[in-house]
């Protein structure tokens, strides 16, 4: 073929070949850009997780100090045990460990090494067991957050900063004598919020989250399924169905903070429901997750083949019986998957809950839908705002817990989908 085309053709082929290598290079470049984009996104993911793990893991351990406590009967009158000065026990214990410390300022510097939570701990022990009074015991008590940071290497061991030379000497002595140890930070999981980082825990916000999400699920799942069933099985195509469809799709894309404004305007100001309560939080999150659940439930119902319905109708079942006995059970795994994904979104939602006042500082663990509560993401937001350095690690630790639950929920959704996936 080349021969018949003569001398002219060689230049064409050359031109094409020259162009070809250029085009192949462009092809390669394009592909590389694609790979680069993926690697970049995954890199962001790794950085994000790595950063939070590195920051958060230290918060799962907590420094404790061993102090010899003498449960002085004079300080612990049995009739006024509730209001006894337990802090004095801690202080005298510390003084007996460092008898050479004199002067008010030095003493105060010494007391600063122990958390104010140590006195609560003693109080709890004594109230629980009156036999302790009059005895002397070696107890591991919770250390102050800054000492904790120092031992974890987050604060430099140089005098003049958070610690003076005297305090650094004491810490060194405590370490030499084996009176400092790191233990698993159980307190973080068993207590509510606190102004003192070493005493703050996630239990309060976690139970607020459980209450809120429980309500959200109980409301949004049935309503979502009902709406999806109505839209798919009973509603005739027409203007009204188009209107509903557009409405639901738009609601799914409305910014979450707007739902917070709705909650504030309607539930709190108009209906007079209590601020900061899981009740309102649950209602707001219900409205927010409803579109997601409706959309996924509709998809699940659509996936049930019409032959199932026709068979049921042919055997004399009514429309309602067909739907409730056959269509919904068959669509249930799909609907559950959608609901779990909706719940996972609600779990991480913060902005609308800020609007309805779930940002208060709450020490108590909420026990009812009306109690003032906060949720885990809002707790993260509050801690991230706190000036104390030790809260940084706690924030990351709370994020780790939040992400753990999110991954758990998403994994169970994936598992459900895999297990019950059906090709008709």
């Amino acid at each position, binding site marked *: 073929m080349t021969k018949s085309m003569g001398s002219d053709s060689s230049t064409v082929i050359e031109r094409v070949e020259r162009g070809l290598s250029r085009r192949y290079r*462009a092809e390669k470049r394009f592909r590389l850009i694609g790979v680069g984009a993926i690697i970049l996104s995954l890199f962001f993911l790794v950085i994000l997780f790595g950063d939070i793990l590195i920051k958060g893991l230290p918060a799962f351990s907590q420094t404790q100090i061993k102090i010899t406590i003498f449960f002085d009967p004079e300080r612990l009158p049995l009739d006024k045990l509730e209001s006894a000065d337990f802090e004095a026990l801690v202080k005298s214990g510390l003084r007996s460990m460092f008898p050479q410390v004199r002067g008010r300022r030095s003493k105060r510097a010494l007391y600063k090494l122990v958390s104010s939570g140590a006195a609560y701990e003693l109080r709890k022990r004594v109230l629980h067991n009156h036999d302790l009074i009059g005895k002397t015991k070696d107890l591991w008590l919770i250390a102050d957050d800054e000492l904790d940071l120092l031992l974890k290497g987050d604060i430099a061991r140089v005098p003049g900063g958070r610690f003076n030379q005297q305090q650094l000497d004491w810490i060194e002595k405590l370490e030499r004598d084996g009176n400092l140890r790191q233990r698993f930070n159980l307190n973080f999981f068993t207590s509510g919020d606190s102004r003192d980082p070493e005493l703050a825990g996630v239990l309060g916000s976690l139970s607020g989250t459980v209450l809120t999400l429980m309500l959200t699920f109980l409301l949004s799942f049935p309503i979502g399924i009902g709406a999806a*069933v109505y839209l798919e099985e009973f509603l005739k195509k027409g203007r009204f169905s188009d209107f509903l469809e557009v409405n639901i799709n738009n609601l799914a894309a409305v910014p979450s903070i707007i739902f917070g404004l709705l909650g504030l305007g309607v539930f709190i100001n108009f209906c007079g429901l209590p601020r900061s309560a899981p009740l309102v939080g649950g209602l707001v999150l219900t409205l927010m997750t409803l579109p997601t659940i409706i959309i996924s439930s509709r998809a699940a119902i659509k996936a049930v083949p019409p032959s199932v319905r026709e068979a049921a109708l042919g055997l004399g079942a009514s429309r309602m019986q067909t739907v409730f006995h056959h269509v919904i059970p068959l669509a249930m795994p799909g609907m559950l998957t959608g609901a779990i994904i909706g719940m996972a979104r609600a779990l991480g939602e913060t902005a609308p809950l800020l609007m309805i006042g779930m940002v208060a500082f709450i020490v108590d663990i909420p026990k009812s839908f009306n109690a003032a509560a906060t949720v885990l993401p809002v707790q993260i937001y509050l801690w991230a705002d706190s000036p104390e350095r030790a809260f940084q690690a706690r924030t990351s630790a709370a994020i780790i817990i939040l992400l753990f639950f999110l991954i758990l929920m998403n994994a169970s959704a994936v598992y459900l989908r895999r297990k019950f996936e059906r090709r008709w």
Partner: protein
Amino acid sequence: MNRIRYSRRTHKQIEYVVKCLLLACALVAVLTTVGIVLSVVFESLHFFAKIPLKDFLFGLKWSPQTAIRADQVGSSGAFGVVPVFTGTLMIALIAMLVSVPIGLMSAIFLAEYASSKVRTVVKPLLEILAGIPTVVYGFFAALTVAPMIRDLGNSLGLEVSSESALVAGLVMGVMIIPFISSITDDVINAVPQALREGSYGLGATRSETIRKVVLPAALPGIASGILLAVSRAVGETMIVVMAAGLSANLTANPLAAVTTVTVQIVTLLVGDQEFDSAKTLAAFALGLLLFIVTLLLNIIALQTVKKYREQYD
């Protein structure tokens, strides 16, 4: 026979009640929209009775904090939304500059080049980015990215605010990557295979096919996906609350601190205030603005997607 007729009648009644209940469930969605509109519009009307609409929409100064005292309201004219809105748009723009190229290219690679093995691994990983709560991104932006950018800027001799628009925009962009990529992926997969094969048959390489055939065919869908992403960026709250500033500066400098509509709503409403002050009402006016803007973006985008989907069906 009588019994059957009787039970059939009650049955019909029950079915009717159940059907009404189902209809009520569907109407909850409509009621939600009505509730949103009413609660936002109602309070906004109170606001516009105090501050003229013109001052709100075209005012260049936003300082609601100075208007706490009653005698200052209105006279100070501190409720101009322009600097707040430009701040929102700037952060959204930065987010788009990050997420659109990365999201688009990852979707193209996953849809057209990657083997199915790579796809099944990488796709869920990208989805994780979308599932991370925004408060986590906010924390990451404020405590990790912001100091990094500030140090980087300082070493280059630039003055970087610790609450710069750049930081919030960058992190928000990362959050939106999976959003863009999943929409692009859907749209690209909807382009008929015949178009690609026609292009290959004419001797085009893969990338030429993608650039000159697939992308133009998918363009309306991608564009509406980007519009949806913009709507999300405009309405995103936690990242900007934690990483962007509070003071409204009318600036085009991405290294300066700007504020956004959502940040202002949060700062105006969190905490205890009397409910009829112009300050708290302003939050609802901002909410109305946000609702209208996102609604318009969503409607345009959803309509385009719908029309476009039908084209190839």
